[in-house]
């Protein structure tokens, strides 16, 4: 099939702008740690999302507002999984001010 010049340019443009999957970790060591912790504790993205929701609810129960992105990162250390949760919060009383 004959292509015109415009089509060729568009193909090249798409090739270089193709959406790429973000790597789960930068170094091989971090990636291995993540992979092993997911496997050892049977964690998946769905479970992490649910965990995140519960943590936000828990913060609410204890009088905190979540004021930023909640991140939960499982890490593996010598066959033990450590779940690191980062929750930026502010006391509700301060939020009202």
């Amino acid at each position, binding site marked *: 099939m004959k292509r015109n010049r415009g089509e060729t340019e568009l193909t090249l443009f798409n090739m270089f702008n193709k959406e790429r999957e973000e790597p789960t970790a930068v170094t*091989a060591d971090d990636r*291995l740690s993540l992979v092993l912790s997911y496997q050892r504790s049977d964690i998946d993205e769905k479970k992490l999302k649910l965990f995140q929701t519960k943590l936000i609810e828990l913060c609410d129960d204890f009088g905190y507002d979540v004021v930023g992105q909640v991140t939960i990162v499982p890490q593996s250390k*010598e*066959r033990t999984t450590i779940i690191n949760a980062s929750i930026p919060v502010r006391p509700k009383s301060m939020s009202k001010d």
Partner: protein
Amino acid sequence: MSQRSVAITITSGKGGVGKSTTVASVGLGLAQLGHRVCLVDTDIGLRKLDLMLGLENRIVYDIVDVIEGVSKLRQSLVRHKEFPDLALLPAAQTRYKEEVSPSQIKQVVNELRKEFDFILIDSPAGIEGGFRNAIAAADRAILVVNPEIPSVRDSDRVIGLLESANLDQIDLVVNRVQPDMVKDGDMLSVDRVKNHLAINLLGVVPEDRRIIRSSNTGEPVILDGKSYAGKAFSNIARRLSGEDVPFLELEEGTLISRIKRLFHIA
């Protein structure tokens, strides 16, 4: 029963990491040290150990024949001509793993304990029936791992399965290490693999082109005096035998360390 008899399963989870190469060379190394050694190939349908040892033309009976009573155990063992203390119990090539059970393998291995000091059981890849057969009779296990994420992840799963089968003595062999890639950060270091898996390190084997030649010629790489991998396998055999052997220096390092490596004293 031999007082010292020990059955060791060599396993990995992932295929192609060098299990059979390890079994052949370490088995030969133990025989060179004066131990009576039997290598049991449990990869039924896909046997390899016979090729690794150059014994493929001498197989008459196999492990399935023994289990089915077609042959006696002694008839089925193939003795190495150069090292008569080394014997192979081959796997059947035209049968399936499902045709034997863990208890049948256990029975065969228990029979072998009467005659051999070391029984090295070569496990098939995977974690299905063949793996369960291979671990049924083992007193301990050696996990062969390549320093790459898919291999380490599979090994981590295998450790869990071995522990749940009450096999607590698990040793690690990191195979196909390329120090230059580790140095550049392109390969996981032995320390990182060991720390993540948290099991005892038994050996570190460098990547070695001579292994390909050895598997094609049927002469285990441990017999190749010029091979670093061969030296590493020899050290593993000595450690299994109870010797305290330092690990090979794999880094390029100084001129002295290179000379030491040349003469196999490192």
